[in-house]
């Protein structure tokens, strides 16, 4: 199968293990994203795929051809890999065209020129062909980097936190364009990021990575977001509300209704995790699971509002927990207003308590 195939990669720097048995497949035309905190070894994996680091264990194949492992080591320049790394800057003394042509040194002059014009058109920079990098915006520089990465028609593209240097508006536009260009090129892409939204937007498949440099869960973005296998993966997508309690009758009682807990016996300590965006909020009771609460604070985040609240009938309890709900649009209630919170039981995750 065309694409990238990594199997059983372990890697250590001295005594520090950074990758422990990573395997993954990226079919041609697909984008797989490694999502994890910094220091989880994801950049090391990209460097190994690119051939910038010596493989210690495992194997890496691109389009069925082993490029590292089993006694083989194909040099980086022969792997047909394009990269967009955070620190992989454009050459400041070359104009846009020459930056792209640089990677086409094996091509004939005419072919290289035609290809450069083609990729500049793809990224919408044909007007800027003869400008120098420092005269371009961050987003334009990023598009030049993308054009340069795909110009030699690589079989694999590696993206390392490619949009992290861009401001929010620019980031949204550039990632959309990058995805279109990569899909059009039909190239296998492996991307690493710590930004869950970016991973959800870009990836056909996400691999959630743990701090030990291992994959904790693989799946479609919706699958890994809605059915995380453990607490760690659930938290990769941002802060969550947490209720520590006990299971009874294969269920867990929470202030927001009863949640199924099939895998737990009576008396088992469990943690119920609820994403802020999983709660609904209304001004009136809405179904049997809705619960009256008191607003402690609210923050407008732009296109959504983050509201902090406590359970209304436990206000005297000093232990009374603060919860957070995130809802679309502007919701700006006065503090201490009473509102109703709802939760669909399937949107709460139950894991073993500590």
């Amino acid at each position, binding site marked *: 199968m065309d694409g990238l195939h990594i199997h059983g990669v372990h890697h250590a720097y001295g005594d520090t293990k950074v990758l422990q*048995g990573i395997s*993954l497949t990226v079919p041609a035309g697909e984008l797989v994203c490694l999502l994890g905190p910094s220091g989880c070894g994801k950049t090391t994996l990209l460097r190994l795929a690119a051939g910038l680091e010596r493989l210690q264990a495992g194997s890496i194949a691109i389009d069925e051809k082993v490029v590292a492992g089993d006694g083989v080591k194909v040099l980086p320049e022969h792997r047909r890999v394009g990269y967009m790394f955070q620190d992989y800057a454009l050459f400041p003394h070359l104009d846009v065209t020459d930056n792209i042509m640089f990677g086409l040194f094996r091509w004939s002059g005419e072919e290289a020129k035609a290809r450069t014009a083609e990729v500049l058109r793809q990224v919408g920079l044909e007007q800027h062909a003869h400008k120098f990098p420092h005269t371009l915006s961050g987003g334009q520089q990023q598009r030049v980097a993308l054009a340069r990465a795909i110009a030699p028609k690589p079989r694999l593209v590696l993206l390392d936190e490619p949009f992290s240097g861009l401001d929010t508006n620019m980031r949204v536009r550039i990632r959309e364009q990058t995805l279109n260009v990569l899909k059009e090129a039909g190239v296998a892409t492996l991307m690493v990021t710590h930004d869950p939204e970016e991973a959800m937007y870009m990836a056909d498949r996400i691999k959630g990575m743990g701090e030990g440099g291992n994959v904790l869960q693989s*799946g479609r973005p919706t699958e890994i977001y809605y059915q995380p*296998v453990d607490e760690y993966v659930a938290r990769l997508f941002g802060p969550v509300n947490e209720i520590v309690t006990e299971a009874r009758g294969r269920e867990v009682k929470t202030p927001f209704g009863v949640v199924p807990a099939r895998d737990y016996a009576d008396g088992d300590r469990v943690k119920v995790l609820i994403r802020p965006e999983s709660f609904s909020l209304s001004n009136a009771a809405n179904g049997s699971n809705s619960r009256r609460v008191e607003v402690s604070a609210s923050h407008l985040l732009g296109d959504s509002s983050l509201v902090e609240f406590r359970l209304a009938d436990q206000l005297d309890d000093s232990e009374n927990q603060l919860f957070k709900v995130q809802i679309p649009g502007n919701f700006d209630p006065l503090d201490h207003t009473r509102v109703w919170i709802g939760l669909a039981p399937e949107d709460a995750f139950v894991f073993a308590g500590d």
Partner: protein
Amino acid sequence: MVEISSTFELKYAPIDDDHKHLADIVTEIVDALDAEKLSDSADLVRKFVETTRTHFQDEEALLASHNYPHLDKHKAHHATLVQKLETLQDMGDKVVDHPQAADSLRKELIYFLMDDIINEDLNFKNFITEAAAKD
């Protein structure tokens, strides 16, 4: 056509043959989707799900018979995949009324076969070929 090429082979015929059989079913599903025979594809997904379950059982029995040291871990992995099989079946059934979901199903089947099933099996490639050589 979905093929188990050499980088995905364990070089141990009983398991490779099973995986090839699964790949053949995926190919049939992809062909049915391409031909827009959607109820056929739903039936074939059912066949894929059943065949995969049987394969997991057979593989676990085989590994147990050779005292594979990481059997529990691999069984746990199969257990998570069995849950995913339900999602796959669901997608297979949904495609009948929602042909636009065909692409997602096609993709998911290929990842499931290559990334979830076979990649993880490659972990016991050396173990099983050595165990077989001793027999």
